[in-house]
């Protein structure tokens, strides 16, 4: 085999691997970021403006997020299966359960501390997933945490709007980035 043929074969390998990773990314992570970005964007804006009614809004948004996630997982598992997918699902279930337990043990958390509790718990989950599966998730988790703390310290009166934009908006942009870069 000559150099040209070897180069062409390696190019076939590179393209096939990139196409596969792109298709898998489109099927999963990108859409998940967008779904939960919408949940955060609407939810945190609601927290800023709706007062006590925000609880109902978050409940409805969480149902939307969970149903949307289930649909994405079901559709993608028809085409590609990995043990990662099951582990990620169990991981998020554990985050939800332990988050609820911590909330109960620590007693009532209200106002901005409640918003921060949700934000940093989810950002923590992204960071852990990033360590195990995909470094960009670690950076997203750390950035969201840092920006949430900064907003809490500098503009506490507008924390809901801040979290809606940097958290929700950040996740939506991340999702679009994943879908477009890998396309």
């Amino acid at each position, binding site marked *: 085999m000559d*150099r040209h043929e070897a180069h062409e*074969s*390696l190019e*076939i*390998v590179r393209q096939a691997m990139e196409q*596969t990773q792109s298709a898998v990314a489109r099927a999963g992570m990108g859409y998940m970021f967008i779904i939960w970005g919408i949940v955060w964007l609407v939810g945190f804006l609601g927290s800023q403006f709706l007062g006590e009614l925000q609880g109902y809004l978050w409940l409805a948004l969480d149902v939307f997020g969970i149903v949307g996630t289930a649909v994405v997982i079901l559709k993608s*598992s028809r*085409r590609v*299966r*990995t043990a990662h997918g099951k582990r990620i699902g169990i991981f998020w279930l554990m985050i939800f359960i332990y988050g609820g337990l911590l909330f109960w043990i620590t007693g009532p958390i209200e106002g901005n501390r409640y918003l921060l509790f949700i934000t940093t718990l989810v950002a923590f989950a992204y960071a852990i997933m990033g360590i195990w599966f995909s470094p960009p998730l670690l950076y997203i988790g750390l950035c969201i945490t840092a920006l949430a703390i900064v907003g809490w310290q500098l503009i506490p009166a507008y924390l809901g709007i801040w979290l809606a934009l940097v958290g929700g908006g950040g996740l939506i942009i991340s999702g679009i980035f994943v879908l477009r870069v890998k396309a």
Partner: protein
Amino acid sequence: MANLDTLIHQPVRLRIVASLSALPEDGSAEFTFLRDLHDLTDGNLGAHLRKLEEAGYVSLEKTFVERKPRTFITLSRKGRKAFVEHVKALEQILKDKP
């Protein structure tokens, strides 16, 4: 020194094996996913998968998803090793030949 694998070297089989190697080690791709990704016909993909399966490079699992028959293809350890060796051999050619 790594050797070229004549079975994997065929362009369509090379694309199939490269795609499967892009998944995690425990990952598998459904038949129609590979077919659509590489723009193949059912017959063409099926013929190449049979050859790879006979060599022990892939395993096929037939199952039902939402009552529809589905075939999932997994790259075996033997297949992954053969692919890695083949890629190393190709890279060696680029290094050795002017």
